[in-house]
């Protein structure tokens, strides 16, 4: 099915199952510990050997020699995979560095061996017995130092490297009010709770990987390419994924090494990347340096806006597209964005929840706060004044498909009690706390991708959905079930959803907040095909048949689905393909974050006191899980604002704080109740679901709202994230923090 004209009325609009808050249909499995994750497949691979990854001790150079003798002689060792015996390997198109290093070493902790033993204890112990001689080379590890060497990458993800509209320099020079500031964001780690893990088994030349992966079809191709085997011989199974946030978009070392290890020892092998290895072995969100310039009139109306971004990555890697939102979020006739990429020999930078916007808004939305202050305009009002209902680069001929930023700001502000904010910083005191409020706009592009599914009804009228779509905590199981139930007129309880298996039709997968809208649209397409088959069996014209209460109805005639499906059952498969509506219309999701912080008057400890927001993201398919996505992302935004930073040792070229005791993410005590309002919106140009993505919107701008609240509380303007105690104190000399 092709979606190339705006959606009209369709069965989803009935809203009997879709749009209603539902408990997750996979909930009971999760709360009882019976949902099997990748390392737990005793059911299908009952007697696995255990693999332990050995990571490189240097960041750049090569392996001179490997001595395996001691490790091979250790108790229980079954085999050791290294580059010397792994056979010829290619590199996946989506990997920047090789997943198995050697002889060349591309980054610290790059996997250089897998030790396979009969037990976890033996494998982990023997891994320490490898003797590897390294020949180190000088690497580049300091983004600030390499900034001058950064070049324009040929492309950036989701956009153009540089954009120019009008004459920024002239307009900015003439602007009565100017903001020109630089901001930095650090490297960050996804830190999902389930480590990367894979159980691998070969049956002849057929490989099965029970793994933890967001993108099944991509990864089948990547594994096949890396191992140089036909795609048809690779099966990926990933029904439950303990968080991903982009870390599991790609095949990582666990999957490749489990496959190689299993081939070597002739039995199933399971491998998890140990937690202290994850930050340096896998991908991370790269650090950025950003410069934002805004020229406005005295009322804050923007005429000129520019956003320049520098980031680094390994050779062949990609830039952090942090200026993306600045192309679309606010008005202004004269516009400029640039992205520059430096070569760094740190571990591979890549996508983490809302790549681009998540850090871009940490800069832009603080710059807007600075502009508000410079103009003496309320920060909510400033954003409303600069709203634009069309793509400001393309002009009115490219309107937004739907854009309710102003509604988000207004309703969000009212709910939060924004009117009680004192615009003068450092004025509000509650005991030992200085109290302040901040706001930031939320913006995330809406992406869609081709997505397929098959759907069947059995003789009892029970519906089954199968697609290789994944549920990484996003609630895919439930919304896909809801979609099928709505389309076929059955209750949610009458639907079984099976996900994450490459034997199922290829979906859009989970990433870039495209998953929910795209994959439900895929189920919509398959369900339309099944409706046609059922209607035909019933002898009804497909476009007139009504599906409800487990029946297909035409006028006063009706037949139960089960009876039509018969003992054999009836199946249909289709996919949703998206036409050029995303070109003709700018498509994005919007919101407004509000935050109230307390800053200790002595110690500069920051506590989030209240947090809330309003969001517009098309039809909200399951308000319960969508809200959870938003509050979770808001919390990740709090982490980015206050604590998350992979600290780079620029001598050795690695992230020093590479475990969860040292890389801090928010805990329960950091997060108060969070308020989420979804603004009613249907986006008929996004998909037949009239939905948009919402999984990443919540992080976009959240951290900036925190930063702006800290400013309002203290008068301390910080532009280097995270906004830790030491930075607040350093900047507070002479300021309100006592």
């Amino acid at each position: 099915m092709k979606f190339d004209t705006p959606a009209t009325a369709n069965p989803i609009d009935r809203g009997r199952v879709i749009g209603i808050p539902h408990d997750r249909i996979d909930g009971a499995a999760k709360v009882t510990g019976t949902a099997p994750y990748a390392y737990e497949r005793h059911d299908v691979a009952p007697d696995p050997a255990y693999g332990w990854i050995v990571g490189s001790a240097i960041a750049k150079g090569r392996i001179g020699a490997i001595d395996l003798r001691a490790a091979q002689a250790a108790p229980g060792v079954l085999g050791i995979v290294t580059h010397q015996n792994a056979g010829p390997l290619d590199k996946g198109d989506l990997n920047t560095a090789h997943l198995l290093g050697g002889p060349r070493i591309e980054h610290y902790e790059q996997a250089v061996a897998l030790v396979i033993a009969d037990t976890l204890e033996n494998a982990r112990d023997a891994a320490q017995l490898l003797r590897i001689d390294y020949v180190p080379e000088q690497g580049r590890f300091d983004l600030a130092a390499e900034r001058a060497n950064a070049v324009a990458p040929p492309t950036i993800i989701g956009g153009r490297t540089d954009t120019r509209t009008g004459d920024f320099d002239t307009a900015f020079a003439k602007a009565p009010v100017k903001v020109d500031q630089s901001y930095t964001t650090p490297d960050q780690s996804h830190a999902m709770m389930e480590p990367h893990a894979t159980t691998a088994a070969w049956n002849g030349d057929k490989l099965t990987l029970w793994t933890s992966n967001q993108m099944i079809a991509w990864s089948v191709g990547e594994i096949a390419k890396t191992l140089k085997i036909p795609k048809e011989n690779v099966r990926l199974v990933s029904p439950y994924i303990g968080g991903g946030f982009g870390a599991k978009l790609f095949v990582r070392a666990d999957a490749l090494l489990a496959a190689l290890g299993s081939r070597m020892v002739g039995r199933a092998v399971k491998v998890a990347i140990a937690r202290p290895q994850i930050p340096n072995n896998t991908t991370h969100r790269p650090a950025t340096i950003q410069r934002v310039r805004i020229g406005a009139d005295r009322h804050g109306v923007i005429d000129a806006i520019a956003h320049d971004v520098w980031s680094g990555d390994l050779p062949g890697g990609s830039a952090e597209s942090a200026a993306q939102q600045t192309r679309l979020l606010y008005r202004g006739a004269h516009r400029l964005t640039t992205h520059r990429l430096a070569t760094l020999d740190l571990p591979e930078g890549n996508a983490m929840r809302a790549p681009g916007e998540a850090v871009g808004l940490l800069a832009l939305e603080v710059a807007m706060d600075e502009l508000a202050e410079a103009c003496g305009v309320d920060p909510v009002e400033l954003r409303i004044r600069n709203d634009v209902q069309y793509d400001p680069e393309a002009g009115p001929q490219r309107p937004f498909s739907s854009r309710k930023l102003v509604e988000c700001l207004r309703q969000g502000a009212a709910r939060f009690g924004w009117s009680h904010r004192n615009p003068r910083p450092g004025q509000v005191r509650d005991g030992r706390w200085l109290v302040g409020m901040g706001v930031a706009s939320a913006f995330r592009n809406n992406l869609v991708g081709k997505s397929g599914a098959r759907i069947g009804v059995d003789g009892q009228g029970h519906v089954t959905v199968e697609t290789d779509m994944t549920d990484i905590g996003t609630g895919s199981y439930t919304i896909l079930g809801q979609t099928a139930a709505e389309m076929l007129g059955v209750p949610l309880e009458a639907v079984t959803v099976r996900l994450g298996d490459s034997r199922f039709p290829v979906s859009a997968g989970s990433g870039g907040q495209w998953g929910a809208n795209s994959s439900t649209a895929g189920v919509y397409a398959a369900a339309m095909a099944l409706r046609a088959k059922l209607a035909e069996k019933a002898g009804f014209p497909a476009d007139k048949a009504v599906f409800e209460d487990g029946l297909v109805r035409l006028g006063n005639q009706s037949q139960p689905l089960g009876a039509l499906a018969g003992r054999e059952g009836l199946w249909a498969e289709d996919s949703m393909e998206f036409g050029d509506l995303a070109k003709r219309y700018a498509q994005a999701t919007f919101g407004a974050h509000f935050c109230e912080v307390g800053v200790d008057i002595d110690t500069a400890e920051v506590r989030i006191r209240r947090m809330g927001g309003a969001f517009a993201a098309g039809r909200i398919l399951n308000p319960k899980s969508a809200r959870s996505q938003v509050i979770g992302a808001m919390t990740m935004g709090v982490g980015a604002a206050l604590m998350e930073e992979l600290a780079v040792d620029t001598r050795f070229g690695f992230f020093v704080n590479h475990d969860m005791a040292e890389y801090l993410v928010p805990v329960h005590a950091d997060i108060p109740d969070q308020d989420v309002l979804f603004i009613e919106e249907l986006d008929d140009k996004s998909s037949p679901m009239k939905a948009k993505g919402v999984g990443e919107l919540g992080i976009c701008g959240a951290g900036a709202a925190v930063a702006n609240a800290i400013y309002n509380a203290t008068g301390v303007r910080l532009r280097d994230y995270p906004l830790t105690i030491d930075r607040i104190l350093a900047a507070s000399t002479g300021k309100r923090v006592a």
Partner: protein
Amino acid sequence: MTVEPMSRRNLLQGSAAAAAALPALGEARAAPADHRHARKEEGSMTPVGLTVNGREVHLHLDPRTTLLDALREHLRLTGTKKGCDHGQCGACTVIVEGRRINSCLTLAVMHEGDRITTVEGLGTPEKLHPMQRAFITHDGYQCGYCTPGQICSAVAVLDEIAAGIPSHVTDDLDKVAFSDREVRERMSGNICRCAAYSNIVAAIREVAEGEKA
């Protein structure tokens, strides 16, 4: 590896623990012997008897085996999760002798005779523990990986408050009472990167209010 379920005893006070919660143990009994079993003759294995979810089990373990790996790999009770294996995340939280601990930072052989409750011992999909039910109702999870640890911790937290054990945020050390703030502090050893935090607090609050009623 040897697993010998000896008897069925429900040793959990006031919880929904049931013998039916133990399908994984049955599987473990039928599991084939593996390389670890062969090494028993080398004398490096240490016998240990545990009572897991009300059932006695006897294992011969490499002393290096953590309680977490004994549960996950030997008893195939994979509800208890390994998030960091270093006591930094709380995903491995189980209740031992009535107290929650990180099962990754203790050796199985140190628990001879101990009563251990895992998430599987709290309830099953067919017969949920009230805390499990509340987590579903309040969407107190997303990816589900930290969830068993959160739930075990939450059950124990309510007992700790009832027992008058103070916390970092208890204003008067002699007056311990349930509050959202207390829950947030006490649950801070269970990291949820999906950050269902405020939903988890709501779930725990509901159970606490139910217990009071």
